[in-house]
């Protein structure tokens, strides 16, 4: 526990998992607010506009949390991963700096306009600012995925005599083939989060018989986008991500699937516990030959198991990786089922009366958060023991002068602050939900509504 690299990993893992709870809603909600705002401009139905304004308030609280918890991420490359920064800074800092130049300036400028400018500058500019905020948040996601993609699949570089990497092909880094599937999968997950939150709040309104006019709208927009997003997570984005891992990171695939032995026509383990002593899966429940088909499109293809690789290249925690992946897939499947059923009932005009299904929608709100976090854990735990896949091991990337005691100090500090932030966030969002879309918390905001 006093290994500085390990404590630094804990700190990075904790701060980034916590941070990503906010941007996933920001990115998804930016799209949904744009949809609500567009519906208002098309129909001139003021309730769509009030819906947009209601979600903008939750967006604003969420955005602040995302901004403040995001700053430590960029800093930590330098503070905790100094040798990695020296090694790869010439490449990954390109995409990180581009995020600042192209995404952060855009979203910060137009967010102010979007939140404060509706009455002063009119509806067209307000829609435009919603559009720009959406563009900024999604561009931000792209640059971060591009940075991560280079760590998963380094391209466009050459090694220098002093043992670092140097950029030789800018476009190769920016258009890394790894990016497409991963970006689609991350964005799809973000839209799914927003869809589940929106339908969940709508379901709560319907179940508790308040703001029902809005509850129906939230459920409708939420389940329609939720079904599209959850199916998109299965195919193409999830499927492509899987194929990509199969071809470029076969060890990660073996560990994710809990495949200890190389097999012809390998099955998919739905359940089971990786046994790291006996090197097998305990209590397996396996769909025969499915893994070979999904990865190589052939029922009898050979899949390399962990036994095909030297032990020091295995991911550092096979069980955690295995469970992360299975939790992601399991929750994804449940979300597809519930969203599919909800859309079916919506089409049959029975959804708003089906209380049991509304309960499911409401209780499903945490699922996309867990699935997205588990998905990232799958991607990053599976990258271990490499910091840059195949080029730099994690142990060789940490800061040489920062001691574990100092990292514990800051890790505990982050934990304390983030606990307080989490409570404040929940408190304030629940208050907004309790107030509902009809009235705002402050006089001027409320006055906006009727005249708008």
């Amino acid at each position, binding site marked *: 526990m006093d290994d500085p690299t390990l404590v630094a990993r804990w700190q990075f893992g904790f701060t980034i998992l916590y941070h990503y709870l906010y941007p996933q809603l920001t990115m998804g909600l930016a799209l949904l607010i744009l949809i609500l705002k567009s519906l208002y401009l098309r129909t001139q139905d003021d309730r769509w506009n009030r819906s947009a304004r209601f979600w903008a308030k939750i967006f604003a609280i969420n955005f602040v949390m995302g901004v403040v918890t995001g700053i430590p991420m960029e800093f930590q490359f330098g503070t905790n991963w100094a040798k990695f920064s020296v090694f790869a800074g010439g490449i990954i800092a390109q995409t990180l700096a581009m995020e600042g130049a192209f995404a952060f300036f855009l979203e910060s400028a137009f967010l102010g306009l979007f939140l404060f400018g509706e009455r002063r500058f009119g509806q067209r500019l307000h829609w435009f600012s919603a559009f720009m905020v959406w563009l900024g948040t999604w561009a931000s996601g792209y640059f971060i995925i591009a940075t991560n993609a280079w760590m998963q699949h380094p391209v466009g570089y050459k090694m220098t005599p002093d043992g670092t990497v140097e950029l030789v092909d800018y476009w190769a880094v920016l258009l890394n083939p790894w990016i497409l599937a991963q970006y689609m999968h991350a964005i799809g997950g973000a839209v799914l989060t927003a869809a589940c939150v929106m339908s969940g709040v709508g379901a709560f309104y319907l179940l508790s018989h308040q703001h029902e006019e809005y509850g129906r709208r939230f459920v409708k927009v939420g389940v329609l986008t939720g079904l599209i997003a959850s199916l998109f997570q299965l195919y193409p984005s999830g499927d492509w991500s899987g194929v990509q891992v199969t071809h470029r990171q076969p060890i990660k695939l073996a560990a994710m699937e809990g495949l200890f032995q190389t097999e012809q026509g390998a099955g998919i383990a739905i359940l089971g516990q990786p046994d790291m002593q006996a090197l097998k899966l305990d209590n397996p429940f396996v769909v025969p030959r499915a893994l070979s088909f999904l990865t190589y499109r052939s029922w009898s293809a050979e899949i390399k198991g962990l036994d095909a690789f030297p032990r020091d290249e295995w991911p550092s925690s096979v069980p955690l990786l295995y469970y992360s992946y299975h939790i992601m897939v399991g929750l994804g499947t449940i979300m597809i089922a519930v969203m599919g059923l909800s859309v079916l009932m919506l089409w049959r005009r029975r959804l708003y009366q089906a209380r049991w299904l509304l309960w499911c929608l409401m209780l499903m709100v945490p699922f996309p958060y867990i699935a997205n976090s588990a998905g990232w854990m799958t991607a990053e735990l599976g990258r271990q023991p490499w910091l840059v896949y195949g080029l730099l091991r994690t142990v060789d990337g940490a800061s040489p002068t920062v001691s574990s005691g100092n990292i514990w100090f800051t890790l505990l500090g982050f934990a304390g602050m983030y606990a307080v932030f989490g409570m404040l966030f929940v408190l304030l969002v629940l208050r907004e939900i309790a107030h509902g879309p009809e009235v705002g*918390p402050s006089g001027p905001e409320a006055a906006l509504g009727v005249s708008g």
Partner: protein
Amino acid sequence: MTTLWFVLVLFMLVMYVLLDGFDLGAGAVHVFVAKTDAERRMVLKAIGPVWDGNEVWLIAAGGTLFFAFPVLYASSFSGFYLPLMIVLWLLMMRGVSIELRSHLKHPMWATFWDAGFFVSSALLAIFFGAAAGNVIRGVPLDASGFFFEALWTNFDPTNPNPGILDWYTVLVGLLALAVLVTHGANYLVLKTEGALNARARRMALAGWAATVALTIPVTVSTFWLRPVMWANFGRAPWGAIFPLIAIGGLVGVLVCLLRHHERGALIASGAYMAGMMVSSAFALYPRVLPAVNPAHDLTIHNAATSLYGMTVGLVWWSIGMVLAAIYFVFIYRLFRGKVSPEEGHY
């Protein structure tokens, strides 16, 4: 090319200090110049639409520094580990304080966030100043290009193993607080009316007096501790224009405040800060992080990325900055003029 990136990173840091400087300064003075809840909300409305964008300059400057000078980024961020983490916590506290205050209508809730906003803003000003002081004084870099500084050792800047805080860096920190108080108060003068405007004006004058009183010992002790800071001015006397801009700004603040030229006073306090920062960078060049042992200095030559990286970076950076400039001009024009008590979100 490396010199160009030295200038561009400096440009972004100066932009950060000028822009976020006034909202930091506003935070450091608001509990004194804004007495009632309505007045404090006016302060938040004055910075509300812009503070987040201003802070992006810090993130963007950090990113640019990382990409142009990765060795400097790695060395300084790990060496300044503790103060940077404290700065992060203060930035978080500050952002949350600004944005959450308006969400509950309760006097205790407001008081709590007012205190958070004040404490974090004032401490950030001091820490940023102390950071600049550390860079000028030099840090204990070893032959591998890394170091680690404790928060404090014996408060003696001539110690071969100095801490982040010593009497010199604390002095620079206090100067930074004084000038940001002036700058922030100038901004509030420009954006508000009535009693708040009058109090902010008196605060700006007090800040100005403190800035003058601290600039003299800071300048004297800088050249006493680091006589090498003279060298570039001797080699290239045109560099004297930067300290002259700073002095001109200092005089300008007083003249403009006395003549009620509100916009001029804000520009003048900005000119002082820009002049001081550019003067320091001019004197440090080509060093980017001086070491206690000059053989281990980090310079633009041993800390920079590849020529190819800097060249492609110049293309997208220029496009990005033009876009950012358009957004900023657009937003500041939309929200120009005095804030009105009725509208707004805070």
